[in-house]
């Protein structure tokens, strides 16, 4: 019986004809890009396949989830590396694995004690794990392809998530983290609708999220009561993403046209409070007293995250350097308060 590894040694006699000078003279992109995974995944989702693919679809075509950059008070940053969940200090030291993957979108609880993430191969579910390390606890048991984009309520008692179900309208889910009680909020569009960043209002009565419909995705901000009722579209026009409730529940901040916009919770009185250029807006959050906004920006274009190959999406995104600014709710008195990495980390007050 021949040894396969030994057979491969026959290749080592071959000389590569490609020269470095050819690489230097080459314009990247001459070769056709890798398979159009984004379109392929849209089809996959449309036909209800492959749970893990959903995240990439939404990353590529849907309202881009805006994983903010921040650190826990103790300084830990959570991120995904090659599918597993890691934490590290802001200076990049003390990197250690907190949970096995394949996982996506780790988000810290507001008090920094728990990390929620979506994980699983056949069916992706929401898990939480203690910041000091322990066996992750599964919170959801959602039908294929599973649950995505866990977002904490401001008091840390509940988590909102997105469930793109096979053959049925997608749903937003809300659950208590002490186990059980999941509210399901069906979305009205049966196919090609992707929702991200589902964030509960402070009184838990409403959930705000970014959603796009169809292939020509221009995500907008929607809100819906957690006990059902009509869906309200709060924005229109240019794509709007990354909504964040103010602690009072009276206002919502979001990103549109590379600017931070603040509006009333009913969608009225929309005002641009900050333009991120020449950097790019990544996320916006409110401070606990609701008087200030925390805005994360990066010099690199986050759209670079869709550069081929798309399998690199997380690795590329993670290494985008970013800057965090704090400012008054009207955008004034902005100060640079730190730098970080674009990891899938929930900011803390």
């Amino acid at each position, binding site marked *: *019986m*021949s040894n*396969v*590894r030994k*057979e*491969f040694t*026959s*290749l*080592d*006699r*071959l*000389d*590569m*004809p*490609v020269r*470095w000078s*050819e*690489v*230097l003279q*080459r*314009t*990247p*992109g*001459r*070769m*056709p*890009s*890798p*398979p159009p995974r984004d379109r392929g995944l849209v089809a996959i989702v449309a036909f209800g396949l492959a749970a893990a693919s959903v995240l990439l679809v939404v990353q590529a075509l849907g309202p881009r989830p805006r994983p903010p950059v921040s650190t826990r008070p103790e300084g830990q940053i959570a991120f995904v590396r*090659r*599918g597993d969940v890691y934490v590290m200090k802001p200076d990049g030291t003390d990197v250690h694995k907190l949970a096995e993957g*394949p996982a996506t979108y780790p988000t810290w609880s507001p008090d920094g004690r728990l990390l929620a993430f979506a994980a699983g*191969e056949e069916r992706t579910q929401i898990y939480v794990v203690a910041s000091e390390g322990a066996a992750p606890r599964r919170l959801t048991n959602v039908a294929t392809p599973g649950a995505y984009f866990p977002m904490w309520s401001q008091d840390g008692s509940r988590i909102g998530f997105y469930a793109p179900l096979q053959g049925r309208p997608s749903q937003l889910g809300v659950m208590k983290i002490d186990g059980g009680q999941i509210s399901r909020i069906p979305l009205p569009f049966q196919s090609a609708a992707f929702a991200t960043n589902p964030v509960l209002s402070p009184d838990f009565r409403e959930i705000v999220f970014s959603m796009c419909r169809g292939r020509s995705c221009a995500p907008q901000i929607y809100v819906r009561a957690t006990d059902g009722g009509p869906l309200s579209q709060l924005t229109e026009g240019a794509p709007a993403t990354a909504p964040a409730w103010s602690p009072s529940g009276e206002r919502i901040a979001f990103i549109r046209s590379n600017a931070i916009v603040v509006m009333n919770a009913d969608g009225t009185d929309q005002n641009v409070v900050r333009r991120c250029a020449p950097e790019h807006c990544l996320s916006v959050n409110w401070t606990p007293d609701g008087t200030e906004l925390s805005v994360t920006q990066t010099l*690199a274009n986050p759209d*670079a995250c869709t*550069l*081929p*190959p798309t*399998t*690199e999406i997380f*690795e*590329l995104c*993670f*290494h*985008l350097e970013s800057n965090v600014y704090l400012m008054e709710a009207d955008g004034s008195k902005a100060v640079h308060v730190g730098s970080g990495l674009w990891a899938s980390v929930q900011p803390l007050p």
Partner: protein
Amino acid sequence: MAKPSSADIEELFRSEGPKIWRALLAYAGDPDVANDAVAEAFAQALAHASRLHSPAAWLWRTAFVLARAELKRRSQVSNPGVGARGDDTGEANESWHDLVAALRQISPNQRAAVILHDYADRPSREIASILGISTATVRVHVSQGRRRLRNLLEGYR
């Protein structure tokens, strides 16, 4: 890890490039595909060097993804299959021809899994990322691919 410089990418071209190229040749069976994928992957790495965390892994993935895309495009255009065009290397009738001929008879995923695992020594998780499958499936592909490859190579002797 410090971000790689252009010099680092060039060093990787000299240290890893030939192995990537040979793996792609074994996978695609076509020197043109291997040449183009290697050149393109390194050109992209140069363009995006400041964003690469693990440039070697990135290059392996990018080169294979590009080669797979090219093979897929060609199959859509003319459906030629994977052709072992050994003559282009000037080394006709070498033993590697048997290897490539055997490899072309196993499924593309098995072929890629065996090459990346047994020749390139890439970790299973990385192979899973390249092929878009789970690590468990990678192990199955490696096991089944090895078995088929051994049987095929026995038949050539």
